């Protein structure tokens, strides 16, 4: 069985933990809970008789006052930067996080996730600006942890990247 480490990064409150909960357990909790430190979950993904076990490291919410420990990314097969399309600030912070991660681990593929698609878009970024941002990632996926939209396919893609 192949095992892959995947890290999830992003500013506080963008729905990282909910995303994982949706993927691993298939549920969405309305209750908000800040992640402290690292939370690790696992889930097996199968395609064409081949199984990959994902070990998903959910890093605590990152904001501009406290950075994150880039060491957590070590040995990861991929990392995901999650932003929240209802908060403009989250994209700025997400891009800062990406820069920091790339600085330490330039070779690990980064996946761009815009979350909360179940809610109306309320940030002020234009499509062009978004395009510019997503150029720096391997892939852009728009998800909803609440409805589960694109969540499964996101992790499936990462598993067999």
């Amino acid at each position, binding site marked *: 069985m*192949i095992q892959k*480490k995947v890290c999830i990064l992003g500013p506080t409150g963008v729905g990282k933990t909910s995303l994982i909960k949706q993927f691993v357990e298939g549920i969405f909790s309305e209750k908000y809970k800040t992640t402290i430190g*690292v939370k690790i979950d696992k889930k097996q993904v199968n395609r064409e008789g081949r199984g990959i076990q994902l070990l998903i490291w959910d890093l605590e919410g990152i904001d501009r006052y406290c950075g994150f*420990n880039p*060491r957590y990314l*070590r*040995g*990861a097969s991929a990392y995901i930067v999650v932003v929240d399309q209802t908060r403009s600030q989250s994209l700025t912070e997400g891009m800062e996080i990406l820069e920091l991660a790339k600085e330490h681990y330039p070779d690990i593929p980064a996946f761009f996730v815009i979350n909360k698609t179940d809610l109306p878009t309320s940030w002020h970024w234009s499509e062009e600006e978004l395009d510019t941002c997503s150029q720096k990632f391997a892939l852009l996926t728009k998800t909803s942890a609440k409805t589960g939209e694109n969540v499964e396919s996101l992790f499936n893609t990462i598993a067999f990247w």
Partner: protein
Amino acid sequence: MTDKVPPSEFTDDSLEKVRELLIGRDNTFVREKLDHDAKGVVSNVVSEALLERESKDGSVNKVLVPLVEKSLHRSIEANSEKIVGTLYPLVGALVRKAVSAFLVEFVERTNALIENSLSPKSIAWRFKAWQSGVKYSEYVASQIYQYQVQQLLVIHRETGTLLHSISADPDKQKDADLISSMLVAINDFVADAFGVNGNESENELGEIKTEDFTLLIKIGPQALLVAAVTGSIPPEIRGKLQQALEDFHRFYQQPLINYDGDNAAFAGCETLLADCLVSEKKEGEGKKAKRFIGALVLFIALIGLGILSFMRLSLSILKSDLHELPFPPGVIITDTYISNGKVHAKILRDPAADDIESWFKDHGIDPNRVVVIEEPFVSLKTSIVERKLEKLIRNYPLSEQETLSLNSANGSKWIISGDVFAATAMRLNQQINNLPGISSTDIDISSLNVKAEYQLDSSALQKVALTQLVNKVSSQSVLFATNQDALSEVQLATLEGLANDVKQLLSVAKKTNTVVSIVVMGASDNSGSSARNRELSQKRAENVVNSLISLGVESSILIPVSLGELPLQNPSMGRSVMLNVLVSSAL
């Protein structure tokens, strides 16, 4: 045209020559060079080449396995004796090891059973385990073991993924991969939080400890070895872990460097790790003592089994002995069986026969081992009848004036002699005749002198005796077959008894002054002519008379008479000789 041809030929030729000069004709130089050092060239790369090809398409194995199998097969066929010789000591050692391992396990299990089943300690432990919400088995482990390595994890250092894990308790193994990742995360956290510039490795966790639980973390260049240990850890464990980690790196160097998340390459590392999954029980001496108890229980059980089977065997032998031994006369064995550790024998025994217990003793059988169930019966065996007769005579109640003795003549005839009063004689006579089976015994009472107790009484008694004898003789008859007058053996034997009675009668008659005549009446049935019947009955009477005379009866008192044919309802009644005794007082 012709000018152009030579240069092209020249060019071709020179190229060929240059090639020949450089590498020789047909690559000879290159080949020579290669041949010269072929061994060296191949030996430098053979292992790597094999490994590379094997990991590429697995074809090396496919080629080698049949070859190895074939040559192994041939080698065994050709050198079977040699191989047997080599394997022999190994097989012996293997068998011994397996047997001793089995015995040790058995003893340990017995110990565990004795210790853990219902001892007060185990009940107390169960209660405490329940109280503290721990599984009983875990509580026992914490109480029994000084320390125990419960789980070992080998973790890839960079990714934090689990490479392999083994556990003393397979139930606990399920979340080892998550634990591994978390452990690495914690390690990263520690290194980050307390790290001194750039010197990260020195700040990695080596140990995480609670009151009774320790995670020992050994860090290698590519992998971590983590041991979850309960109890207090002896120093040699750390050494062992270090050694195992170093071995792991040595054996799996290549897969570790090229690790891409696939654990298949590490599947065989169990043997490396198993050495570290150690434990030590508390109270080393106690263990020995308990092992001794287990061995003792086993030993006692074996001895007990041996004794039981020996007892059973000896009982079976005894049982068959009882069937084969010749039992004394008057005793018949009807059944034997084994029950409650004893042989039971059902026998029929005549009260006059030998005592069975003393007979057992005489034949070397312990009477305590045999339960005799005795039923009385009457034996008609001659020796038993004679014994009864002897007993009767020896113990016969006599007055002071009387004597009685029994002697055997020729081993077959018994002579009763002595002086007795008539009453005694009568009673004795009656009792002798009542003995079952006495008819086949020859008894002579002619030497028994019957005397008068008192003159008057004596004559009266003698008269009674006379009357009895007269009745007895008169009631006798001798039966013949149709148209027969000769006496058969059976009839002769009857006549013998009759002759004795007649002699007694005469002797009593003499004493009582009585004259006796016996009319011997021959008769026949009414078949055939009456002349013939008359003749037949005459002959029968005469034959009886003659044989009585030959048995010692005075001829003068016997009067043969022919009755001729008797018209009786049952014709057989007529074919007989009857006696009638005539008595009258002497003048």
